[in-house]
């Protein structure tokens, strides 16, 4: 049986979602995305450089929207109004594409989400027909509010955006996974492959990352490692780990027929 991820009514084989920022060039972006096996790639929406580099290749040429599901984000938005405006431009830009990543930030120092504005923007976008995947704090109550508001995926941070600090509060992530029915995707904070594995072992439905791959010494190799990390974590979660047994060791080899005497 195939283990598919369903978001907003569409299914995906890969549970790794990848950002396209901070790479050396589009060739490296493309190579890293290919190595990661990701089907969903995030992009930012920015003003064109009027009068500059008109013949420069574009991201849409490097990563054709026919092959990848674009997830336009609202990076850099600090109000619900700016985020909604940005995503309406994204929808126009991508010919009516309605799957989006909402992030409304609280301050430039932490990039921590502003949850009241995030909730407001979610409500407005849902009303306007968008399928909203929401970057949010790892608060299970806020997550349930977002679910009630009609978003299609809950995306709590594991630690601050771009920090590479890993999964700082697995307990809160677990609470969110228990409390919401929507896909839960860890977004932000993953630093290396084992972080992605831990997120998946907890029962997350996917992991979204950018800097962990782009800022690795070898981004393409790290993308490959992340693919394996996510797959290993997912399979371990599905397999159901053995219980932890403190003070109660159990040998894997037979206890009978040993030549050594019994321990005291």
């Amino acid at each position, binding site marked *: 049986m195939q283990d598919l991820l369903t978001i907003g009514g569409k299914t995906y084989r890969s549970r790794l979602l990848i*950002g*396209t*920022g*901070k*790479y050396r060039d589009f060739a490296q*972006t493309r190579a890293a995305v290919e190595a990661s096996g990701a089907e969903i790639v*995030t*992009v*930012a*929406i*920015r*003003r*064109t450089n*009027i*009068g500059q580099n*008109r013949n420069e290749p*574009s*991201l*849409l040429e490097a990563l054709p929207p026919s092959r990848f599901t*674009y997830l*336009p*984000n609202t*990076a850099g938005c600090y109000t619900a109004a700016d985020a909604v*405006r940005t995503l*309406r*431009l*994204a929808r*126009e*830009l*991508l010919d009516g594409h309605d799957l989006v990543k909402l992030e409304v930030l609280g301050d430039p120092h932490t990039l921590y989400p502003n949850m009241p504005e995030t909730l407001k923007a979610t409500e407005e976008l849902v009303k306007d027909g968008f399928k909203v995947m929401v970057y949010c704090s790892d608060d299970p109550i806020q997550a349930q509010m977002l679910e009630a508001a009609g978003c299609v995926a809950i995306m709590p941070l594991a630690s601050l*955006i*771009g920090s590479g600090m890993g999964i700082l509060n697995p307990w809160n992530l677990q609470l969110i996974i228990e409390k919401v029915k929507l896909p839960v995707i860890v977004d932000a904070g993953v630093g290396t492959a084992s972080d992605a594995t831990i997120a998946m072992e907890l029962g997350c439905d996917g992991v*979204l*990352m*950018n*800097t962990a791959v782009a800022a690795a010494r070898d981004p393409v190799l790290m993308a490959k490692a992340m693919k394996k990390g996510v797959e290993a974590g997912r399979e371990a979660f599905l397999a159901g780990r053995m219980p932890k047994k403190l003070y109660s060791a159990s040998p894997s080899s037979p206890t009978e027929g040993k030549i050594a005497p019994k321990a005291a």
Partner: protein
Amino acid sequence: MNGKAHSLEPPIDVSALLASLELAGKKVAVERNGEIVPRSAHANTLLADGDALEVVVAVGGG
């Protein structure tokens, strides 16, 4: 446009503006005074003095 003042020869519509910027046929989205101008309406949306335009593209991001 994109936060900077531009002087244009009227009458000019959004299509003509994009062509003058060598952006014709490029994947861009246009907002005029806070409202999206759909691609299908570029050719018949005349610009007026004082209009605020945003012309955006997709770039790498997380």
